[in-house]
């Protein structure tokens, strides 16, 4: 141990003050959940259900580009995925109402603004690229706990149940494949009717709203994904008379990660410090009492 130096009162005062300032600036920022904003530059996709003809070219292109095997369990000669799976990152589904109205709907990762999977992942294997907005999975970190699957409100991340070395599989906007080579996603590029458009988030949101404004008789008045689940980077336009719940989307005002983070952080920052303070005081009192005795 170093020799005790006489303490400089000015220096002590300074340390005290700077600690107070640091505390005052850091604390409010730490309490509660961070607000998550979307960047204008983020990549996005717009799916217009009124333009989709259900040809499933997108599913085929996605499998080809991303090296995904077919699902031929049904009869051995059809690639017939019933839902998203570890072999199918995007799928076209069909909703049919009782009175015969119908609509196709494409499903894939929504690339949320405040993704529940990213918030849930204990080892930061699921991350959001803050430049592109792409939510991606990092095999070098993933421990396979599957909390991302539990957390995702859209049921997107899938797991390879039949593998000894399993992967989590979900759309990453062709980040290492098509996007790298062609600057767009495979599904958007092959779509023959322009039902899927790839672009910047703000442009596509603008475009979606424009379509509703110009043809209110054709569209459901809402763009799904603008604010739903805290906002997404994949937007949906539904035909008039069909709701997004019909198409299988959850009605969530904010990201499920928000309530989780605010309560979890709240427990750490609001409940624990008083207990620690009381505990410390108790120890001090006990000690001084001992000395008295």
């Amino acid at each position, binding site marked *: 141990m170093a020799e005790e130096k006489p303490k400089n009162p000015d220096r002590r005062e300074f340390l005290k003050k700077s600690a107070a300032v640091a505390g005052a600036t850091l604390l409010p920022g730490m309490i509660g959940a961070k607000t998550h904003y979307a960047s204008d530059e983020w990549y996005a996709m717009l799916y217009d259900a009124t333009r989709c003809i259900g040809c499933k070219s997108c599913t085929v292109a996605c499998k080809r580009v991303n090296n995904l095997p077919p699902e031929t369990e049904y009869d051995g000669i059809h690639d017939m995925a019933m839902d998203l799976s570890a072999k199918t990152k995007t799928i076209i589904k069909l909703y049919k109402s009782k009175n015969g109205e119908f609509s196709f709907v494409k499903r894939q990762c929504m690339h949320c603004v405040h993704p529940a999977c990213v918030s849930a992942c204990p080892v*930061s294997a699921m991350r959001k690229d803050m430049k592109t907005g792409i939510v991606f999975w990092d095999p070098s970190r993933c421990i*396979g706990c599957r909390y991302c699957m539990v957390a995702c*409100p859209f049921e997107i991340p899938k797991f390879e149940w039949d593998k000894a070395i399993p992967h989590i599989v979900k759309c990453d906007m062709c980040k290492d494949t098509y996007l790298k080579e062609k600057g767009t996603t495979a599904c958007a590029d092959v779509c023959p009717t322009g039902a899927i458009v790839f672009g910047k988030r703000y442009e596509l949101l603008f475009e979606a709203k424009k379509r509703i404004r110009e043809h209110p008789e054709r569209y459901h008045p809402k763009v799904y994904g603008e604010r739903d689940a805290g906002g997404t980077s994949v937007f949906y336009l539904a035909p008039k008379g069909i709701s997004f719940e019909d198409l299988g989307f959850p009605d969530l005002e904010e990201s*499920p990660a928000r309530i989780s983070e605010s309560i*979890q952080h709240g427990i750490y920052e609001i409940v624990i410090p008083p207990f620690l303070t009381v505990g410390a005081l108790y120890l001090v009192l006990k000690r001084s009492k001992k000395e008295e005795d």
Partner: protein
Amino acid sequence: MLEDTRYEVVKGRIFTKTFMIFTFFVALMVILLGIRFFKGLGAVTNLSDGYPWGIWIAYDVVVGSALGCGGYALAILIYILNKKEFSPLMRSALLTGALGYTMAGFSVIIDLGRYWNTYGFFVPSRWNPSSVLFEVAVCIMAYTLVIWVELTPAVAERTGWDRRKVEKVVMIAAVLGLILPTLHQSSLGSIHLISLGKLHPLWHSGFLPLYFLSSVILMGYAVTSAESLLSSMYFGRPYETPLLKKLTTYMVYIGFAWILMRFLELLLWGKLPLVFKSGLYSVMFWIEIALFLVPSYMLWKLRGELTPRKIFVYSIIYLFAGALYRFNVYLIGWNPGDNWVYFPSFMETLITLGIISFEFLIYLAFVKTFPVLPAKEV
């Protein structure tokens, strides 16, 4: 501290018939684990993309670690409320806890798809403080270590290690033993805050951490009572009736408070109609409430005239209450969409049975090797 209490080694052979039956189940588990590790999780479980977590998480980890909270619950009485008379129960409660937590950790490793990356918890650049599971994992790992350290006096008495050195470490462990379970047991509830929209509103609530924490303390007392009575019976030792009677008082308090909190929340958040309108969920809700209510009412009514048998029965009912509540949150009330179903497979269940058997195995061997159970009054 604990050192005022005297403990003794249980006499008898380790390799008994019971021991062998447990060994059989453990052997069976080892074979099934071979399939799991070579063919993937799907080969032995009924897990699916809709239900990524099954009984290995809901039972082995969540209920299993709750059953390991006897030492924590007693520590609250002994160190915080200063009820030193409960000290004789502490050591065996710690042993059950150490085993419960170790087995919970073991189950996690089996359940993790990419277990070889688990070292990431020790790589700061990978930490994600937003993740409730991150906190749970770190706290559970730390507590498993702490609880074994808390048991070292038992080993020290047998092996003749320096008691003073041991006591110092144990003091630190005792403090951590109060903080860590408070954090992770409440967080086992917080884990499903993010299941907004998937977990039925009868269970999804901002109070999840509070419900989990309070019920785990109740389960801690219940498991301590049950374990004490069971080991007294099995090893032919005197029952700790007067002490356990006192313990029931705390169970009753928490039991009633828990039910009250639950209904108060449902009332204030306008969810009360759901308790009748939710079909199967309503039924499960009422069974859960009944399992908390019946032992609380009976223990309160019988206060003076409690026999060891009655304490045992109502403690076990409390354990079922806490376990069902956890199952309701983790599996039954958790619905990812109507196209998904989950019921554990035979092999999945056998692996869980193997893990429980392993726990009993070590318990039997440990109490016959080290002084854990309270010494008989001479």
